């Protein structure tokens, strides 16, 4: 795993198709505490568009996307 931002929890959803990574993230955010950061590793092309959109709508903080060889690491912070 390449160097990346430290997070509270990381979900490896690589190989999972839309809507898998997004749904895994929603599940993780539900069970997380306010202030936790969650990273999702995704090979799905929709995730890096869907997740920031979802975060905005859901009132959670989209921290950023780190792009690696063949996958993205998408980070969201639970703020409420």
């Amino acid at each position, binding site marked *: 795993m390449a160097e990346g931002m430290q997070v509270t929890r990381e979900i490896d959803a690589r*190989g*999972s*198709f*839309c*809507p*898998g990574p*997004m*749904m895994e993230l*929603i*599940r993780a955010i*539900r069970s997380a505490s306010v202030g936790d950061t969650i990273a999702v590793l995704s090979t799905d092309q929709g995730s890096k568009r*869907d997740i920031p959109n*979802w975060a905005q*709508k*859901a009132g959670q903080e989209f921290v950023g996307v780190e792009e690696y060889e063949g996958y993205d690491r998408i980070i969201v912070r639970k703020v409420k």
Partner: protein
Amino acid sequence: MAEQKRLCMVVFDGTVDKLYPVAIMASGAVMNDVRVDIFLTFWGLLAFRKGEPYKVQAISQDYAQQAGAMMALMQEKKVPHWYDTLLQAKELGDVHVHACAMTADLMGLTKEDFEPVIEDIIGVGEFIEMSQQASSTLFI
């Protein structure tokens, strides 16, 4: 408070290639905080008899030739089962699954004959009332 966003689906077909989009659309709705009401009728309802979701193998006749290759590809890429995707959407969001009373009566089926994901058996009138509250209703 803003009015709740809603999506309705009438699921008439009971083939795997139609049940996948039902589950995936429901998931997309959950992501967008949209309530989903699924009205299962005819072949769509028969696919929800107890134990049936994991047994359904049929594909629409139009795509029958490609069915084997598609199923093999999905298995190879480990695409989750459509029913698991639907259950996950229901667990995470506001998803409601209703059985069509007419089909149930016609086939002599009661709530006990169906998968527990089905909340109730309702008439078309009640479903249309739900659909009046939704911004779109899909027929699948």
